[in-house]
Each structure stands twice: as structure tokens, then as C-alpha cells.
């Protein structure tokens, strides 16, 4: 074992009991370890109908049509990986580490192993995950799709993903995180380290579709170099017990750009602690963090943080929350910090019920109250998903409509 690894191990072990800064504390020992082996699935189309439906609901197309490649992780095992577009590399993190000596320079370099007990556990379990790399200059709008599927009851799934977009390359990823039907209780711990190099673009769409007793603790850090662009769309519309996530984008190169959109619905019994953070560490960097959340009875905490450390940084943070039920709660916590002059960081936060004048405006056109509210809610969330792939929109809009009308 090399010195680096010994050091990491020590740090992870020391953090094994460390509570996370935010969110409900899950007792890890209450969950079994998810299986690291599973029967390989040669073709996602041979999965049973129920599983295929589960995949489709998170934007993962079993036929792989219109996708550059597909990867399925079931519990803790990569059970499928296939490529249609050879210009991109898609494999499991472990296989990639065996193949590329240099990958260790990207491994646990952004997310600290000792951030909390969830990162520590993921390290100590030597978790697998997806590795996606777009070589320099690759241009293709065909997205790579990955699905992280929790397939067994009362286990914890640990995932470690690494994404590298080399210089001037473009990469689109759709990730669907979900549970097999009948798996109502479990834990998902997911580390994602993403590198967007000079002039490159990463467009990352993540759809969460969990079940009522699932705890979710993603830990994501993105490193963006000069002229690079990172776009993230995070969508979480179905019931879940608790999601706590605070993806951080480090804008490390001149003119790097980040845009993070979040749309989420907190159902009764759900606690969504969703944040996003941008660090402006190079001149002329820009970021936009937009969150649109709705509660129909659950708890939402929308965090947003922008820290300006270099001149010419410009950022806007927007947290808007709708309360559609007396039992729900919305808390918006925007944080802006300027550590040099010549910085422009702004925020706009608003929480509350749907404006009556808007509802009545639509009603005056002959729409029923229900139709009016549905339209406003769809419109409210739509602002947060304008950047997502077109084919995912209708599924998302249907879910939104159902939720809006079913409240």
C-alpha cells in the first residue's frame, strides 16, 4: 500500500463516525452491505418489464437508442456497460483504475474521504461506480446514460463515480438513481468527482426517483478549468425519506462557467436538504444557481452558496419555494461571500404560497382553479428544467402535473 492510500485510509477510519453537517443522521450499521456481485446483464432490453419501466422513469432508455453508451449499477455491482459511440470511454471506476495508472491523480482528489461518515464508508468499502471520459476535442451531443439502481431491501449502496471531460470536449450525461419496485428502505451514498478541463463542456442531468424510506447522501465536487462549462440539472419529484446534498463547483480557470438547476417536490414525510455551491477561484468566472422547490407536505431546505475569491466573478443565486400544503415547510438559505473587490454576486429568494392574483388571472380566462394551479406549478418548475434533454421533459411534466393536481 502506498503512502497516499495509507493516509486516506487513516483519514477515512477517523471519520467513520463523523456526522454530516446537514440532514438526518443515518445509523450505517442498520443497513446491510449491498452485494458487490451481480449477474451481468448483456442487454438492458432483456430486463423484466417492471425494471425497464423503472429505468425509463429516470430517463434511462433500455434499448440505448439515442445514447452514446449505457451503464447499470445494481446495488454495489456494475451489471451492464455498453457503448454505441466509441469516441467516449465508459466503464466501471475499478476497471478504469486498473487500466489507467494516471487515474489515481483524480481519485479522491475533490471529495475529501473524511468529509463525513458517508464519504468514509464509501472509501472504506472500496466502492465501485461509473467512469466516463470524453477525450480531448470530442464533440457529440449523444448523452451517456447511467443508472444506479438500489435492488435489495435495507442495504446501503455505495458508489464512486469519476467523470473527466478533456480539453475542448463535450459530454452529456443522464444519470437516473432509483430503486427496484418493492425496495422501500435503504441508503444510497454516492461520491462523484468531475473534472471539466480547458474549454470543455459537461452537461449533467440527474433524475432521482426513490422510495419512501430511502436515505440519499450524494457527495459531489466538480473542478472546472479555464473556459470550461459545467451545467447540472437535478430533478427529484417523487417521495423519498431524506436527500441531503450540497454539490460544489470549483471554478478554477479563467472564465469558467457553472449553471446548476434544481427542481424538487417534497411530499409528506420527505426531507429534502438541497444545496449548491460555487467557488469563484479564478478571474472572470460566472455561475448561476437556480432552485425551484415545492412542498406538498414535506420539508425543503434550499441552500445556495457563492464564494467570490477572484476579480470579475459574477454570480446569481435564486431559491424559490412554493408551499402547497399547510403541513409543508420551505427554508431558503442563500449565502454570498466576496473576498476581493470587483465581484458581483446577487441572490433572490422567495418562499410562500401561490400568488392568488396569478390563480385568478388564469381563472378569469375560464380555467378552473385546479387547472390554474397546475399551470402555475408547471411553469414554476419549468424555469428550472429548461436546459434538460427534450425527451425527458414530457415524463417530468407529467409527474409535475400529477403532483400539482393531487395535492
Amino acid at each position, binding site marked *: 500500500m502506498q503512502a497516499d492510500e495509507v493516509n486516506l485510509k487513516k483519514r477515512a477510519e477517523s471519520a467513520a463516525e463523523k456526522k454530516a453537517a446537514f440532514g438526518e443522521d443515518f445509523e450505517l450499521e442498520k443497513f446491510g452491505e449491498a452485494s458487490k456481485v451481480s449477474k451481468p446483464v448483456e442487454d438492458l432490453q432483456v430486463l423484466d418489464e417492471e425494471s425497464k419501466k423503472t429505468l425509463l422513469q429516470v430517463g434511462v432508455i433500455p434499448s440505448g437508442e439515442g445514447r452514446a453508451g449505457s451503464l447499470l449499477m445494481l446495488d454495489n455491482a456494475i451489471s451492464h456497460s455498453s457503448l454505441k459511440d466509441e469516441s467516449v470511454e465508459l466503464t466501471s471506476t475499478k476497471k478504469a483504475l486498473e487500466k489507467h495508472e494516471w487515474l489515481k491523480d483524480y481519485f479522491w482528489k475533490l471529495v475529501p474521504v473524511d468529509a463525513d461518515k458517508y464519504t468514509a464508508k464509501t472509501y472504506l468499502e472500496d466502492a465501485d461506480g461509473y467512469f466516463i471520459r470524453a477525450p480531448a476535442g470530442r464533440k457529440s451531443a449523444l448523452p451517456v446514460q447511467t443508472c444506479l439502481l438500489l435492488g435489495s431491501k435495507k442495504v446501503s449502496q455505495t458508489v464512486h463515480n469519476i467523470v473527466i471531460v478533456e480539453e475542448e470536449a463535450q459530454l452529456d450525461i443522464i444519470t437516473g438513481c432509483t430503486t427496484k419496485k418493492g425496495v422501500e428502505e435503504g441508503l444510497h451514498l454516492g461520491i462523484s468527482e468531475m473534472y471539466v478541463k480547458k474549454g470543455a463542456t459537461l452537461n449533467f442531468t440527474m433524475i432521482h426517483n426513490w422510495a419512501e424510506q430511502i436515505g440519499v447522501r450524494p457527495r459531489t465536487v466538480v473542478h472546472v478549468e479555464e473556459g470550461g462549462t459545467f451545467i447540472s440539472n437535478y430533478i427529484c419529484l417523487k417521495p423519498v425519506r431524506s436527500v441531503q446534498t450540497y454539490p460544489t463547483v470549483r471554478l478554477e480557470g479563467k472564465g469558467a462557467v457553472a449553471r446548476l438547476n434544481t427542481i424538487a417536490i417534497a411530499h409528506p414525510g420527505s426531507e429534502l436538504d438541497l444545496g449548491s455551491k460555487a467557488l469563484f477561484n479564478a478571474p472572470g468566472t460566472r455561475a448561476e444557481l437556480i432552485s425551484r422547490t415545492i412542498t406538498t407536505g414535506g420539508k425543503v431546505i434550499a441552500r445556495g452558496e457563492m464564494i467570490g475569491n477572484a476579480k470579475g466573478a459574477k454570480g446569481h443565486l435564486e431559491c424559490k419555494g412554493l408551499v402547497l400544503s399547510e403541513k409543508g415547510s420551505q427554508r431558503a438559505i442563500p449565502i454570498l461571500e466576496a473576498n476581493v473587490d470587483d465581484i458581483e454576486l446577487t441572490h433572490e429568494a422567495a418562499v410562500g404560497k401561490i400568488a392568488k392574483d396569478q390563480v385568478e388571472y388564469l381563472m378569469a380566462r375560464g380555467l378552473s382553479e385546479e387547472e390554474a394551479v397546475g*399551470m402555475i406549478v408547471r*411553469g414554476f*418548475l419549468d424555469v428550472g428544467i429548461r436546459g434538460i434533454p427534450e425527451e425527458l421533459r414530457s415524463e417530468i411534466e407529467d409527474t409535475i402535473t400529477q403532483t400539482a393536481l393531487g395535492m
Partner: protein
Amino acid sequence: MLKIEDLTVEVNGKTLLRDVNLEVKKGYTNVLFGPNGAGKSALMRTIMGFSEYKVVKGRILFNGEDITGLPVDERARRGLGIMMQRPPDMSGIKLRDLVKAVSKEKKDPEKLAENLDMKRFLDRDVNVGFSGGEIKRSELLQLAAQNPSLYLLDEPESGVDLVSIEQVGKTIRELLEDGLECPGERCTRGKSALIITHTGQILDYVQADRGYILCSGTIMCSGNPLKLLEEIKSKGYEECIKCKLMR
């Protein structure tokens, strides 16, 4: 068609309208004059049924039915349609989708928008960043999709530039005429309207049948709209108030 009887209206406990009586007959276009703050918009919004406006006395009859207690959408379904002066920003709702929903998917938004030169606004969020004239045209586009039998138009000419006013005026005329040119036919099958106007400019485009003057929440006078406008222009509203007091 529309009959308002002894209507007294409050907003947040403050009386805005007192004992208002007014009528719009089938096929008639009536105008409502009055200074700023007289309660013209409040009257119109009360007729439409916006919940902020509490009717404490009197009633509103529409085609013989008492609609005083009906919610906004029920009134819209019975044939009332309003052009608001300051409609709310509808962030996230595209004009195209609203027009579609309002016409119950029966009318093509592109076609309707073409007449109003609003095609390039179809994919914009309703009212967000619209100029004064654009708001009017957007409201008219929605009304064209809605096809009400009674139009409530709140200052259609305000904040509109000279070129747009021509377009707005003509569109209103077309909507009100509804393909019927004969005044006799209008009285049996045509559209009706109540139009608030400050300047009377809209009267260059639509033929008004009757005018009302509203001051301090009360109807002061009614009569031939063009004559009333002349009086107001030469003597101002003060005279109307004095005149009423002397009667």
C-alpha cells in the same frame, strides 16, 4: 346582459364603490369615464369576481342570473372576459400554452397571434418584461382565444404608443363586431362591452352606445358617450360632481 344594482364594494374594509347602478344591454358598448382613483378598475374587477373585492351590498346580474357570489372561473364560463390593466407576471407560463388552454385547444395560437403581431411573443412568459402595448396585445390575444360575450376592457389605450393604439383599437372593434356589421343584428347576437377610458381615444375605433361617469366610487352621470366626453374635456370632472350635488 349585465345589470348592476346598488353595488357597494369594499377592499380590506375600505369602501371603494357605493350604490353603483349600471347596465350594459346585449350588443351595446358602454364606456366608463372617471378620474384616477374613482374606482373604475375596482368596478370592473368586482364584475369579473376577483376575490379581493367584497360586495357588501347590491348585486350583479348577468343574463338575468345573479352572479354576485360566483367565483371568477364560473363567470368566465358564463361569458365574461376581462382585459386587465396590470396583469400579474406569469413566470414559466408561455403565452402559447396559455392561449391553447384558454381556447380549450380549439384555436391555433399562431393564427390568432398573427393578427396582433404577437407571434414572436408566443414563446415568452406571459407578461414578463412586456411593454405597455405588448400587455394590451397579449390580453387581446387571450380574449380572442376566450371569446367572451361581454368584454370588460380596462383602459385599452393606456401606455400604448400611437402605432399600437391603431392595432389595439382595430382589434377591439373586430372582436366586438364579431363579423356582424348591422347594428340591429348586434343587439340580438352581438358582443357587449364595458370599456374604461381616460382619454376617450378608444372611441375613435369603437362606436360606444352609452357612457357613465364614475367619481369617488359613485356613478355621477350617464348619457351619450361622445357628449359626456366633450363635457369632461371642457369642464373636467369637478363639474360632474357639482352637477350631481345640485340635482
